[in-house]
């Protein structure tokens, strides 16, 4: 395998391991604890380095797990025992431990193969040179082996505890009542996060690993409501970011880990924009569609009201568009839809006219509007206050609702302003 291949593989393994667990952090609203954890394991790593005098993985895991646990405990203790607000408690603990780690590393810099750069953005570029030797035989880069192990561990962790994790994440009360201790799950998850952080640390550093934890899960959460899909998407996002990040770093002549995180940021930004339903564009589109619907209603209503006064029935197109009282472009869209539905007819001399269907539908809208006014009036709202609410609600009153309200209001046949309430044409 080429060097590039090994580096990309390392990135993919780290990103996917993190994404898998990070999704649960995001869903449990504990992203910041994950952030704190990945900072706070630094002294554990540093101490393990000095004691074992090497990059042996086991002491590092133990050191990191110990400090991960310490972080969780200290945050809890300061919060509960010393009444420190939780976010402040997180802030104090992780900055203190991280500071300790940085000081340890800089004091012993030169004595061990660990420096501030490594802490900040890892050494993924050196992955191919860090080969695993066994019996004088090379077995590929060491980080790849470690991260593969962690990925398998995380897959097993999530796979075996899937139900428990889901339950404890979404409904701690229920989880406790069926015998799953949410606290135990909490600590297990934190332990797994610590180990994953350490394994990824060498490659991407202590700070950027947080992005790998949180961003894929948060992005995926915008795309779906179903946990399996969120997990799958998060893993895909992580993997994609590692591959693309590698090439971008080459292009920019910059840190690979940083570039991976930038790609993750782009993925999140794109998700915020285009995700179906949760995305900003989807929301905008939905709002636009609603406005056009409302504009259609207003055009029909305006025309029907004029019919009622018995005045001239033809409208110049421009006046009819003005009835919608929205942006002209929207009004034209509304008119287009009305014509397509056969509710209005456009004559050759640029006038519009209601068709029979259009007239019927307009009358039904008017009926809804006036029934609602009557209903509010009978509830005690003064008659000069009922038009506004009715204007807002008229678009949502369908046949069955109109019938129900028709049954509720006393059968007066006239609205509070004394105008006739059109009949329910569906009964004719």
């Amino acid at each position: 395998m080429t060097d590039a291949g090994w580096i990309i593989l390392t990135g993919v393994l780290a990103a996917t391991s993190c994404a898998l667990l990070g999704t649960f952090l995001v869903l449990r609203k504990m992203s910041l604890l994950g952030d704190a954890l990945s900072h706070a394991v630094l002294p554990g790593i540093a101490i393990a380095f000095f004691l074992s005098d090497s990059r042996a993985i086991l002491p590092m895991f133990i050191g990191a797990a110990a400090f991960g646990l310490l972080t969780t405990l200290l945050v809890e203790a300061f919060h509960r025992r010393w009444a420190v607000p939780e976010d402040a408690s997180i802030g104090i603990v992780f900055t203190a431990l991280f500071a300790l780690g940085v000081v340890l590393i800089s004091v012993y810099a030169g004595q061990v193969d660990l420096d501030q750069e490594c802490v900040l953005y890892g050494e993924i570029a050196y992955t191919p040179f860090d080969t695993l030797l066994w019996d004088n035989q090379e077995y590929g880069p060491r980080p790849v082996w470690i991260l593969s192990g962690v990925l398998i561990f995380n897959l097993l962790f999530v796979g075996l505890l899937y139900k428990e994790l889901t339950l404890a994440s979404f409904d701690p009360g229920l989880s406790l009542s069926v015998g799953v201790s949410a606290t135990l799950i909490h600590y297990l998850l934190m332990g797994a996060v610590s180990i994953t952080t350490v394994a990824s640390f060498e490659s991407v550093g202590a700070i950027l690993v947080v992005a790998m934890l949180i961003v894929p899960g948060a992005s995926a959460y915008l795309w779906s409501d179903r946990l399996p899909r969120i997990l799958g998407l998060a893993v895909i996002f992580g993997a994609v970011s590692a591959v693309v990040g590698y090439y971008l770093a080459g292009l920019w002549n910059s840190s690979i880990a940083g570039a991976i995180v930038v790609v993750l940021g782009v993925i999140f930004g794109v998700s915020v924009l285009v995700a179906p339903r949760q995305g900003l564009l989807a929301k905008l589109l939905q709002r636009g569609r609603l406005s056009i619907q409302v504009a259609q209603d207003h055009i029909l209503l305006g025309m029907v009201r004029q019919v009622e006064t018995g005045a001239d029935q033809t409208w110049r197109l421009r006046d009819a568009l003005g009835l919608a009282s929205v942006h002209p472009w929207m009004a034209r869209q509304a008119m287009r839809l009305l014509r397509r539905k056969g509710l209005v007819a456009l004559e050759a001399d640029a006038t519009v006219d209601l068709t029979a269907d259009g007239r019927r539908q307009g009358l039904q809208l008017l009926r809804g509007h006036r029934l609602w006014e009557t209903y509010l009036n009978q509830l005690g709202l003064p008659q000069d206050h009922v038009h506004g609410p009715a204007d807002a609600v008229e678009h949502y009153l369908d046949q069955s609702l109109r019938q129900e309200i028709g049954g509720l209001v006393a059968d007066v046949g006239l609205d509070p302003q004394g105008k006739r309430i059109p009949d329910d044409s569906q009964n004719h």
Partner: protein
Amino acid sequence: MFDFLHVLHLHDATVRSVLFGSLLIGATGGVLGSFAVLRRRSLMGDALAHAALPGVALAFLWTGSKSLPVLISGATCTGVLGVLLIQFITTRTRIKADAAIGIVLTVFFGIGIVLLTHIQRSLVGNQAGLDKFLFGQAASMVEDDVRVMSVMSLLIIVVVLLLYKEFKALIFDPKFLQSLGYSLQRVDLALMGLIVLTVMVGLQAVGVVLIAAMLITPAVAARFWTERLHVMVVLAAFIGGLSGASGTFLSAQAPRVPTGPVMVLVATGLFVLSGLLAPRRGLLARWRRQRSNVLRERRHHLLRALVVLQERSDNATRFRVDELVQELGWERRRVAGEARRLRRLHLVDCRDGHVQATAQGLAEGTFVVKSHRLWEHYLVYRDILSADHVDRPADEVEHLLTPDILERLEEILQRDHGIDTERVVDIHGSGSQYRPAGRERNEVGT
């Protein structure tokens, strides 16, 4: 051990200005941090600082200058952008605040790292020094930097003084602030703006990674010592200034060690000390309170035992330790020890294996016994608990009743239930005025 003389050269202008600068940073951080922590905005500073990194790099890339005002301007732009993005994400998407902070913080930091590594690898020469912004290097401050920082700090402090009342109301009673016609958003924005400035002032000396601690840790430490905002602000400024100055001082001993982490460690040390030593809220004070509660309970129990024994034995006053051991159910050693302690307080006399209450001890013991019994009666007669459930609660309460509460209790029991409180005895014992059957009890009651 340390090369103290080297640093103690306070007449050296550079050393002096560096120390003064880091003192200012710490103090300003403490002041603003007090408001940030109380307003639950602790981690905003963290996000803000991380988001400032790409600004530093961009400012350098565009202007090629490394002067502090230029870099700080860049940092402010991206920092504010980061905070706005956090707000945007939390209000416009389903992503919660914690994840939003985490995302913005790391992604901006990632961008910063990309830019910084790009600068380091592509531009040769002039780039050194930018990475000081990561973990901070107070020694890299020159006098001009300190002057800029002093002006900014002064500005921040003046604005805080001017808006003190508004900030106070924002923290403790936002509704009140609104009712005065202030816009909450604007006051909040002013506070955020000041936090931004504070972070920027400290950026060079503390570094983007850890400057959040200079906002959070001194403020939380100060909180232990006081319940009053202005005291807290002053204390936090003091603790922050101390951490800043001594952090700089200590890190100057080992030039490889960046300043930021050392300041943070000093501040954390002061935080832990405060948590241990602060009066009332500190751990030691709380232990001492608990201990004194325990001791008071033991004293009461021993004196009570003496009174009860005296009642039971037709006014004998001296009792053997064995009798007390039996009555109290304690170990012999504890009884003896407690008796010795009470003798020092002139509550009992101990002579040849016998213990006798002094007049003072007898008074206190009688008071405790009476408290216990009257409380039992009160609980029963007010139908709060039945007679066989009142012993435990009375055990708890007997240590807490004060003379005026007891007086009031006596009044109620005498007036409403016709109990002779001077002769009140154990509600369970013979000779009690209480008869469990409901009818008779009603008679007593009416």
